[in-house]
């Protein structure tokens, strides 16, 4: 048997080594702290995130710095934490950021604190519109007549993706005509979309094989806002809604809303099994490309940025206008009222919403432009996706605004909960929406 260690000696060495480590670390820390360069005076800190648009701005940042002498430091904050972070900043008398990206869904909550600057104070609405910004988009973002950001960084649209080979196949077209009585074409209304999805997903209809009728994202992840952008607009399309913050009316269990949910459940039954799962970007891409065995998609309700990322080799896809309205997915920079450097941040906002920069961010990945002069620019308008996106995003199909109430985060969370119950069958559509009515009634009393 080996001799037992001398506990005392070990403890002593540990003790000494800890002291040594502490001293060394402290010394290194002091060195790093003191060797940092002095902060430039005109420095603004902006909460930021990732993506091709943001890379574009980062790449051109030195132009901004040369023009205005303002240095910008970016702090990456994940989307899921935006509300927590920003609320805490607004509570603090010495905020550590001066401006931040804000998403349309979280905007009402943040704005209700009164901690964001109204951009109309710097530039009145008429001037924004005369410069070419789409009024429909500005209206979506306005809360009580105040504008907190413009969607210069991201204006994502959902589009209908469809398999060109399947829609051109003669056998399938004949079978479809026989079953439904009209020609198979790319769906332009919700009813036609459901018909096509059901047709493709059942071998007994199309005679060939089971496809996944439509790929849906029904969960809330950073991948896709899921049911946020799918259900409320559908409910509005059918004459219902969720909650009207101005009138205080709760609409979620009206006839139209129930009809919309029942439609969505039918559509979901043609969707992939994992539609209620948290998807990953890689998985989405693999499924769309047909790289996952045994799951061929016929259609997909997918984000505009996904299209250029599909490797064309495996399956041929094309995009079309989304056959029903969508909610906005807008991202821009807002200014914090508590910050002493508001004016500098305004310069940054002005620069990022200028035509030149908006053109760059619009072209970075397919999205809706926020300025008409950019949309009309030949370099932009020559792209195949511009019209289809603008049609889906206000031109033909309206954009359904988000709930403009400070408690919207909670309301949407409850909505996801109830929708989940309806999707999994533990409640009927009517029961789920009645429960949601009660939930919202409780929440708005807080």
């Amino acid at each position, binding site marked *: 048997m080996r001799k037992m260690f001398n506990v005392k000696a070990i403890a002593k060495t540990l003790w000494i080594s800890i002291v040594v480590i502490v001293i060394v670390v402290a010394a290194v820390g002091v060195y790093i702290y003191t060797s940092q360069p002095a902060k430039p005076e005109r420095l603004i800190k902006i909460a930021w995130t990732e993506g091709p648009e943001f890379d574009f701005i980062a790449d051109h940042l030195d132009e901004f710095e040369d023009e205005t002498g303002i240095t910008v430091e970016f702090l990456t904050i994940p989307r899921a934490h935006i509300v927590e972070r920003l*609320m805490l900043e607004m509570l603090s008398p010495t905020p550590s950021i001066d401006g931040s990206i804000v998403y349309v869904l979280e905007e009402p*909550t943040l704005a*209700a604190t009164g901690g964001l600057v109204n951009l109309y104070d710097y530039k009145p609405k008429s001037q924004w519109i005369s410069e070419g910004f789409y009024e429909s988009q500005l209206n979506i973002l306005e809360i009580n007549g105040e504008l907190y950001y413009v969607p210069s960084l991201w204006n994502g649209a959902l589009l209908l993706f469809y398999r060109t080979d399947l829609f051109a196949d003669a056998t399938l077209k004949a079978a479809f005509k026989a079953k439904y009585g009209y020609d198979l074409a790319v769906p332009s209304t919700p009813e036609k979309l459901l018909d096509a999805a059901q047709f493709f997903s059942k071998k007994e209809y199309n005679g060939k094989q089971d496809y996944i009728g439509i790929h849906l994202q029904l969960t809330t992840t950073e991948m896709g806002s899921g049911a946020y952008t799918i259900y409320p607009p559908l409910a509005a399309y059918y004459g219902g809604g969720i909650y009207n913050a101005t009138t205080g009316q709760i609409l979620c269990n009206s006839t139209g809303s129930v009809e919309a949910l029942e439609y969505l459940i039918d559509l979901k039954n043609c969707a992939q099994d*994992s539609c209620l*799962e*948290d998807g990953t970007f890689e998985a989405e891409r693999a499924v769309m490309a047909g790289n996952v065995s045994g799951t061929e998609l016929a259609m997909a309700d997918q984000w505009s940025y996904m299209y250029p990322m599909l490797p064309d080799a495996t399956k041929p896809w094309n995009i079309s206008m989304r056959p029903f309205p969508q909610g906005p997915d807008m991202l821009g920079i807002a200014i914090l009222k508590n910050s002493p450097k508001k004016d500098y941040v305004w310069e940054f906002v002005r620069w990022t919403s200028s035509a030149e920069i908006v053109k760059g961010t619009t072209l970075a990945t397919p999205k809706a432009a926020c300025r008409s002069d950019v949309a009309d620019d030949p370099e932009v308008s020559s792209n195949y996706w511009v019209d289809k996106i603008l049609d889906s995003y206000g031109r033909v199909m309206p954009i359904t605004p988000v709930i403009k109430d400070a408690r919207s985060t909670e309301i949407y969370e409850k909505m996801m*909960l109830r929708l989940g119950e309806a999707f999994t069958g533990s409640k009927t559509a009517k029961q789920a929406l009645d429960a949601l009515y009660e939930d919202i009634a409780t929440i708005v009393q807080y």
Partner: protein
Amino acid sequence: MRIFYGWHLKKEAMFGILLVMPAFIILAIVYLFPLVYDIDLSLSRWNLAPPSPKEFIGLKNYVDQFSDETFQKVLYNSLFFTGVSVPCEFFLGLALALLLNKNIRGKSVIITILALPMMIAPVIAALTWRWIYDSNFGILDFFLNQFFGIRPLWLSDPNIAMYSVIIADVWITAPFMMLILYAGLQMIPTERYEAAKVDGASSWQMFRYVTLPSLKGVLIVALMVRTNDALTKLFDVVYVITEGGPAYATEVLPTYAYKVGLKFFRLGAGAAISIITLLIAAMMIVAILRASRGR
């Protein structure tokens, strides 16, 4: 002894107080003050979205929470989690400790390895498990699909998600139980076993009448600590693996208190949930103590 007489006694106390003072000051700031503030907060209504001034409302927060369907679900989740994971840890830990109590080669290395999960940051262990549970690229899904043809959705199925969290947490904490019980087993003098053998006891009887009673003290303490931790400290693992989802299937009291307080900004309600958690943990610990005395 004689030194500690008379006015020296007062000086004694003074010195003692002096020693304790620095720690006490810090604890007063970071521990007592928040606790008192929390109680005050739980009796008030203070929201930030939309902003409302802080006003006293008595026990209304508590009443509201208990009658709220979501809170009831969260409470059930916490109790369910505790009720399943603590016995799992306990039995696994006991089994391992008993195994290790035998003569095994390389024992100290084995113990060190088996103790690893509890030394790793819970967040990192949770990240590892999340990666294992991934529905598309996770190794668990692949393995189960290949050999059993089943593909449970570990992270997105509301019926399974809680078990995913339980498995990860048991993986992290069973070693703790194992170490405690092993140390306890080591302390049992071998004479007791020999006496029992002389009396003709079978190994099961030895276990029941020698091992278990000797372990009782350590066992009760470990049980109390783990029950308390399962109720009040389960934050990191849930936050990383499921963030309380899907649909509140894995939302437990600590994560819910955080959500209500710092995501929905209903500070009064969040504080009330924390206090309720504290009270429930206290009740369970008292119950365990009572039960152990009774035996």
